[in-house]
């Protein structure tokens, strides 16, 4: 075992020349999964370098304006869309990855998800029972707990009331948040520092344990010799402009790619179509497409106050969707508001009586691909096609959301579904949602949960990695992000990614 160097973090201003590092393990990507791998390796006493293309953000670096915030924290300025079926999707570029800008939702997938994974993909060790100790550990690491009642705000509590009225299960959202003040600003960065995003929780713990964290460095190639990875190389990049500078290389005994479901396949493809004997790299891309309905209530709800996503219902998981409350900057939420002119302004004027609830769906028939672009850019070409067989799930979800809103006392709802009435004032009017008139192209959906682009499979001919995340083709190359999920999780994926990453890290430690 190599003795760990002193932990440190390096930022753009410190790179003055080309450089080379050595470590037992190099981890590419500081999102929830990469951070957990790095932490566990460092804690076990091994030297580890964590590489992140984005910069670390402090509260005074956050932008409150939604457009400018997305431009700074997201790849492609948050304006990424899929081809095929055009759907917006985002990927963060910052220390902590998506955890800096997500709603901190931490949910364990139900048993049936793992049963499905085990049987379909020959993953005998990936059961809920086997993963539970890892779930326990990562929940403790990032402070997961239920959203407290006093910061729910009206728009979240109305959801609970509606679920109670209809007899649906619901619960306060479990989140990695400690001391939430209900500012509803998860999306642009938590100024209260209550959200335990991994940049303020796991990464500092890893640094304390000896990890070296290099930010503003873009990995462009995985280096290999025969069937072994030997390290990675790339260039320093200036925050926000992306201007490239000094070159670097990190030599390591083990390489872990945790660049995210939409970047890890690109990195493999740009490294000479690495680890792709199965032909599955960049294939099988799945999302949790989300649909949302806005309900307008007779009285002001002060929607600015309250946990961003404070309540959810797992009632319909087996039917393919999960219900949640949702908030984001008005400028982002209102992007879905239909109309223009005075009509649009009238709708905006009602934003203070607004609640938005959404459903994320398991759309197993709708798949896509991740492909590298030309040049050294790691932004992918995403192609994804919404399959008509998945339409009933989303339509049913919209109908259930409509029922919830009217059960909660909404005076009208705005579904955003094209070709249907802009507003529906009663459940009878909302019947049109399930009348069979809705076509896939009528739906306005988006998805930020992405999976399966480097899926794990017990059969090396059908998947990229084994169930410990090790590439079938390379002895010491591991992938640790949601790309390795064989299918979607039915629930928000961050916690599952972290639990799998922790298990992987222990497997790596055992082999070092």
């Amino acid at each position, binding site marked *: 075992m190599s003795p760990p160097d002193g932990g440190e*973090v390096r*930022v*753009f*201003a*410190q790179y003055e020349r080309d450089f080379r590092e050595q470590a037992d393990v190099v981890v590419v990507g500081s999102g929830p999964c990469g951070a957990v791998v790095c932490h566990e390796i460092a804690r076990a006493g091994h030297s580890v370098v964590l590489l992140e293309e984005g910069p*670390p*953000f*402090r*509260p*005074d*670096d956050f932008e*409150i*304006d*939604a*457009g*400018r915030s997305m*431009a*700074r924290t997201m790849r*492609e*300025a948050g*304006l990424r869309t899929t081809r095929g079926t055009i759907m917006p999707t985002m990927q963060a570029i910052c220390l902590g990855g998506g955890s800096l800008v997500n709603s901190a939702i931490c949910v364990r997938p139900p048993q049936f998800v793992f049963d499905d994974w085990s049987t379909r993909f020959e993953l005998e060790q990936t059961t809920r029972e086997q993963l539970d100790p890892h779930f326990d550990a990562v929940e403790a690491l990032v402070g997961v707990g239920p959203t407290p009642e006093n*910061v729910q705000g009206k728009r979240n509590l109305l959801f609970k009331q509606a679920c109670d009225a209809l007899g649906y299960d619901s619960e306060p959202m479990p989140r990695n948040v*400690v*001391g*939430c*003040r209900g*500012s509803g600003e998860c999306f642009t960065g938590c*100024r*209260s*520092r*209550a959200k335990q995003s991994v*940049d*303020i929780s796991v990464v*500092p713990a890893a*640094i304390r344990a000896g990890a070296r964290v290099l930010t503003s460095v873009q990995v462009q190639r995985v280096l290999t010799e025969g069937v072994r990875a030997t390290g990675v190389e790339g260039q320093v990049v200036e*925050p*926000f402009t*992306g201007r490239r500078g000094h070159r670097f290389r990190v030599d390591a005994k083990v390489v872990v790619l945790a660049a995210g479901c939409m970047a890890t396949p690109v990195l493999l493809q740009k490294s000479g179509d690495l680890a792709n004997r199965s032909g599955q790299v960049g294939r099988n891309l799945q999302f949790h497409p989300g649909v949302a309905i806005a309900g307008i209530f007779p009285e*002001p709800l*002060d*929607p*600015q*106050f309250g946990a961003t996503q404070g309540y959810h219902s797992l009632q319909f998981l087996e039917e393919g969707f999960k219900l949640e409350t949702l908030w984001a*900057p*008005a*400028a*982002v939420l*209102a*992007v879905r*508001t239909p109309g*223009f*002119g*005075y009509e*649009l*302004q*009238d709708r*905006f*004027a009602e*934003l*203070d009586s607004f609640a938005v609830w959404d459903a994320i769906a398991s759309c197993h028939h709708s798949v896509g691909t991740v492909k590298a672009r030309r040049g050294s850019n790691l932004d992918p070409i995403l192609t994804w096609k919404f399959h008509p067989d998945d339409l009933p799930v989303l339509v049913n979800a919209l109908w259930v959301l409509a029922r919830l809103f009217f059960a909660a006392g909404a005076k009208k709802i705005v579904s955003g579904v094209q070709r249907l009435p802009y507003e529906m004032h009663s459940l009878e009017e909302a019947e049109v949602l399930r009348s069979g008139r809705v076509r896939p192209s009528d739906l306005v959906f988006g998805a930020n949960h992405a999976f399966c682009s480097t899926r794990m499979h017990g059969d090396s001919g059908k998947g990229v990695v084994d169930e410990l995340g090790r590439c079938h083709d390379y002895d010491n190359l591991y992938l640790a992000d949601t790309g390795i999920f064989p299918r979607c999780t039915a629930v928000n994926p961050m916690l599952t990614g972290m639990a799998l990453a922790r298990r992987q890290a222990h497997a790596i430690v055992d082999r070092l």
Partner: protein
Amino acid sequence: MIGWLLVIVLLAYAVQRLWLGYPRPARACEWLAPREVHFLEAAADALFPSGGAMPISGREADLPRWVDDYLVVLPRSKRTQIRLLLLLFEQATLFFPAPGPLRKRGWRRFSALDAEQRSDVLRAWSRSSLYLRRLVFMALRAVLTMGYLGHPATLRHLRLAPYRIESPITEADVLYPRIGQHPDDNPLTPSDITAPSDGVPIDLDGPLHPDYEEHPL
């Protein structure tokens, strides 16, 4: 000869249509050309007219300035896409003219149409049977909505303006300097670390974030 004349006439028309006749903007922009500023003002008027339910109109929200600031922080490819979107909308009346009698010259540039024609054009885009055309409209509306609803006056009116929040100082703030700074310039030390957030809900009557407070003119 006739062919060349035709080419010259078409070129002259294209130059006139694309570049000429735009007034000089009141203020220089970093990225936006005068034609884009003029288009954005016209689109802002049509999307968020004055006299509606909101306290300010799209023009008063100075959306060209917001878009210009936004373009500054965008990567080149996205900046180009948004500028193409503006160009497409401004010139698409050539192919999708404003409805109405021909004498109203509905094929003029979007910014040259009268208010009623602009509304008709937006309606046609928003309700088009062509999915892509609807999508283009939504993209334009999304960009302008981000600017409009990001404006402090609209957010204050809607009681959605962000509050003033004193951020606790964490271990991470000591480890990471501000973006662009060298760690040696980070004044924070471990002794500056404060108690974490106490979980006290924000005060809805409390002070707003300084950038969103109302300032006397």
